[in-house]
């Protein structure tokens, strides 16, 4: 009888912990949204590393040209390999952030024939970017920028899924890649 009570209490504990963890996660999501809005108020183009909105607070001059970034970490990344991030007009860069449990943005729209470089980052734990039709399946570690380069040669709407288990909402993580004619 006592063991059954312990079992019931354990059940309530796990369910409670899970609910609290989810609530904490939801409030984290709101903070992130606000941070995105404040960044977009500064019109300095996009960060060459992450592709997000750049800020005047984070700049670096390379070969006479000043580049603006979204965070100090991107400056370090740029300094490591400036040729890699200096602009290439033929490649379209798109950034995507994976988080528990979704992607931001939820849609990437491209034109057929575009050469694309997806710059993928993770907000929390390791995620994966999986696009079946383009045979893309790469892990995205927190603190790293994962680059995925491909030519958008198939038209249609394709699911972008997470391929690395990242928590109980893993199976609901989905974004869309739309390639138009």
């Amino acid at each position, binding site marked *: 009888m006592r063991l059954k009570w312990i079992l019931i209490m354990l059940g309530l504990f*796990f369910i409670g912990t*899970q609910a609290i963890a989810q609530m*904490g996660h939801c409030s984290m999501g709101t903070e992130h949204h606000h941070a995105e809005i404040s960044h977009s108020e500064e019109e300095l183009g996009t960060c060459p590393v992450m592709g997000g909105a750049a800020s005047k607070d984070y700049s670096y001059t390379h070969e006479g040209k000043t580049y603006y970034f979204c965070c100090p970490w991107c400056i370090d990344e740029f300094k490591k390999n400036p040729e890699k991030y200096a602009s290439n007009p033929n490649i379209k860069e798109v950034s995507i952030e994976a988080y528990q449990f979704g992607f931001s943005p939820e849609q990437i729209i491209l034109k057929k024939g575009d050469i694309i470089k997806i710059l993928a980052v993770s907000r929390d734990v*390791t995620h994966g970017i999986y696009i079946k039709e383009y045979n893309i*399946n790469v892990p995205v570690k927190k603190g790293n920028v994962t680059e995925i380069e491909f030519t958008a040669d198939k038209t249609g709407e394709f699911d972008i*899924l997470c391929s690395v*288990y990242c*928590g109980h909402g893993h*199976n609901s993580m989905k974004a869309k890649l739309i390639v138009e004619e």
Partner: protein
Amino acid sequence: MKNPLIDKRNQLILFLGILLAVKMPQAGARFALWVLTGIIVAALSDILIRRIFYKQKITPNSAIITGFITAGIIDYNQPFFILSVFVLLAIISKHIIRYKSRHVFNPANFALFAAAFFRVPLTWAIESNIYFIIAFGLYMAYSIRKLPHVSGFLILFSALFMMQGINPFMLISWFFVFVMLIEPKTSGFGRLNGFIFGSIAGIAAFLVFRFVPRYDLFVLSLFAANAFIPLLEMLNKKNRAGLPTGR
């Protein structure tokens, strides 16, 4: 006639069926068809193997569970032949990789390990309602005496992730803990062995997350813990043999 729901395996099949039904509105008919394919391939292959090689007639409850879990975790947008291959592999592994007349690896997990190795995405679509999984899982772990396994895993997993500043409850798979980890035949027997088994899985999950995050931490950790079972049983036997014959 005996009530079929007394059998724990039938209870688990019913439970998995409910999880599938909960996921259906979001995942669509393809997911149901996918799982059904997994179940049919697993059941038929087990029946055939038993009949041809062991001259036995069986009700394939365990194979149905294997098919359910394998299909529920592998991405259901893959081609059907991929599912069939891995489910078949799960059933074959059960009959080939054995130690003392028991299979060593959880068959579904063995197939998922192989799938992960070949970069087939594991989307864990069957994990549709964690609250239901926790409630049913606690009942199941208690009734088949696998609470030490769960405790060992949770203690080590939580402690190691908290030390890294990561909330373990945001990352944990309750489906793994309460359905896969406590599989009766491959998770070791007894309180101490069970606790050690769970602890090995907890440590392995952390190590995979930390050092090879591209692989599924739960699938690899259970594979590692399963591999330790023969060793645990040998140590257990040695200890028992070394005990003084009490007076």
